[in-house]
């Protein structure tokens, strides 16, 4: 599979995907059902972020499905700054 | 540029006044959903009048098969008149008989086993027309 990019930066260098707080998660799987990009998987009854690279950079839509607020995302400003930096480096 | 594969268009009459309308719809969806899902497209017939230029181009952009419930052949006539040349015209009453096609309109959950078999038979006929349409027409470029 060809390397995917976001704003010209290899996706693999961008740290953007959901983080699950397992103390809060009740494994309702609403987030997994919601996400069309197969970011989540259920393994042995447990919810895991199986394909973080599939996550659309800056998309946070699945977080809204979580009534328990168990899903968080990295700091947007930091990620933005990192992307800008990588773009400069790549030129 | 790679040659784009041309999909085949299937347009159903949807007749709301007779069983043939339900049968033609279901058989059309069978091709779209099960038998040739990646190689077929459809459009709602009345969009030729209610829609725009984009919709009316349909039969000129795709080799098109029409599926009609009865011998009035509304889908065929309307497509030829409003959109473009039709490659093949399937008429449900020719396949399952006038009696079955012109009975009361059916709800999709009310088909008996006979009628379900009819849907398969009609889908067979569309599929044959589909194969012919794909075989006789070399992929023309419509993209870009």
């Amino acid at each position: 599979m060809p390397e995917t990019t976001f704003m010209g930066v290899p996706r693999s260098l961008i740290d953007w995907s959901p983080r699950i707080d397992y103390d809060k998660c009740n494994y309702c799987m609403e987030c997994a059902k919601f996400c069309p990009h197969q970011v989540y998987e259920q393994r042995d009854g447990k919810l895991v972020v199986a394909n973080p690279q599939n996550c659309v950079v800056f998309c946070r839509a699945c977080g809204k499905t979580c009534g328990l607020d168990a899903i968080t995302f990295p700091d947007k400003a930091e990620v933005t700054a990192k992307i800008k930096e990588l773009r400069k480096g790549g030129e | 540029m790679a040659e784009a594969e041309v999909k085949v268009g299937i347009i159903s009459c949807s007749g709301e006044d007779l069983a043939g309308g339900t049968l033609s719809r279901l058989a059309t969806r069978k091709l779209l959903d099960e038998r040739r899902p990646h190689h077929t497209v459809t459009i709602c017939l009345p969009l030729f009048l209610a829609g725009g230029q984009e919709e009316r181009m349909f039969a000129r952009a795709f080799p098109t098969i029409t599926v009609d419930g009865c011998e009035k052949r509304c889908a065929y006539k309307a497509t030829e008149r409003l959109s473009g040349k039709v490659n093949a015209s399937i008429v449900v009453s020719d396949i399952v008989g006038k009696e079955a096609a012109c009975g009361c309109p059916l709800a999709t959950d009310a088909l008996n086993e006979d009628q379900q078999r009819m849907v398969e038979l009609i889908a067979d006929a569309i599929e044959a027309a589909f194969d012919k349409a794909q075989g006789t027409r070399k992929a023309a470029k419509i993209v870009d």
Partner: protein
Amino acid sequence: MAAKFAVLPCNGLDKPAGCVAREIGLRLAERDQAALICPVLAHAAAARYEREAAALPAIVIDGCATRCASRLAAERGFKVAQKVVVSDEAKKAGRDLGDSLRLSDELSPFIDELVTALLAAAQAAPAAATTPADEGGAPGEQGGLEYDTHIKDKFIFRVPRSGFLFNENDCWLQPLGGKRARVGVTDFVQQSLSDIIYVTLPALGTEVEQFGEIGAVESAKAVFELVSPAAGRVVAVNNALLTNPEFVNENPYEKGWLAEIELTDLAADRDLLLDAAQYMEILKRKVAEFHV
């Protein structure tokens, strides 16, 4: 000579500032053959000025902070190239507009200055405010914009040829001149979602970061959250979408816009935005991977 601008003054009759706004409008129309837009008629008959709204960059003149003309311009889809609030300008210039609703001769030089400044600024407005006519094309069927298209099966994906910036999250930004810009989704979003049945507008006054959430559109298939192409403060929203969410399907770039923001620093955000040609490449890639 054909009009180069549309002029929309508030025409406020009950305040001196409104009367000044009206006078500015009249003088602009005289000096530059601008098309005068009657705000009362524009309000009463939505379709009356559709052509002007689509084809001409607009100069909007508000008398007071109520900004009726600006609101009307947004509602009617005018492409605002320049705007001014008379009471603000009077304050800056240290002018007392008085109590009379009849214009005094003393105000005439002040009005002339504003007219001159507005014309100069409007003529120097950024490309976003230029009309398709200026770019050598006639206004299209969809309104004033010209589109490049990409076709996949029976789906047509359009990208406005100029005046818009995009992010890779399929949202657009249309600078309106000044610090204002509109935000919305692209054809890729509305085609993928199919019939949009619900639109969530951001709250007025919300501060949004670049790539922050700015509203959502929803169909039976999925919810799509808008990722703001630029940082700013939400100053207007397209309330028409609450009753007519299908406007986003019909034209996501014009009547389907979601919000208007006052930009924080577009120059800084520009780095991570795409122009029409760049976005078209992204869109084609996504369309190729996309199964309806």
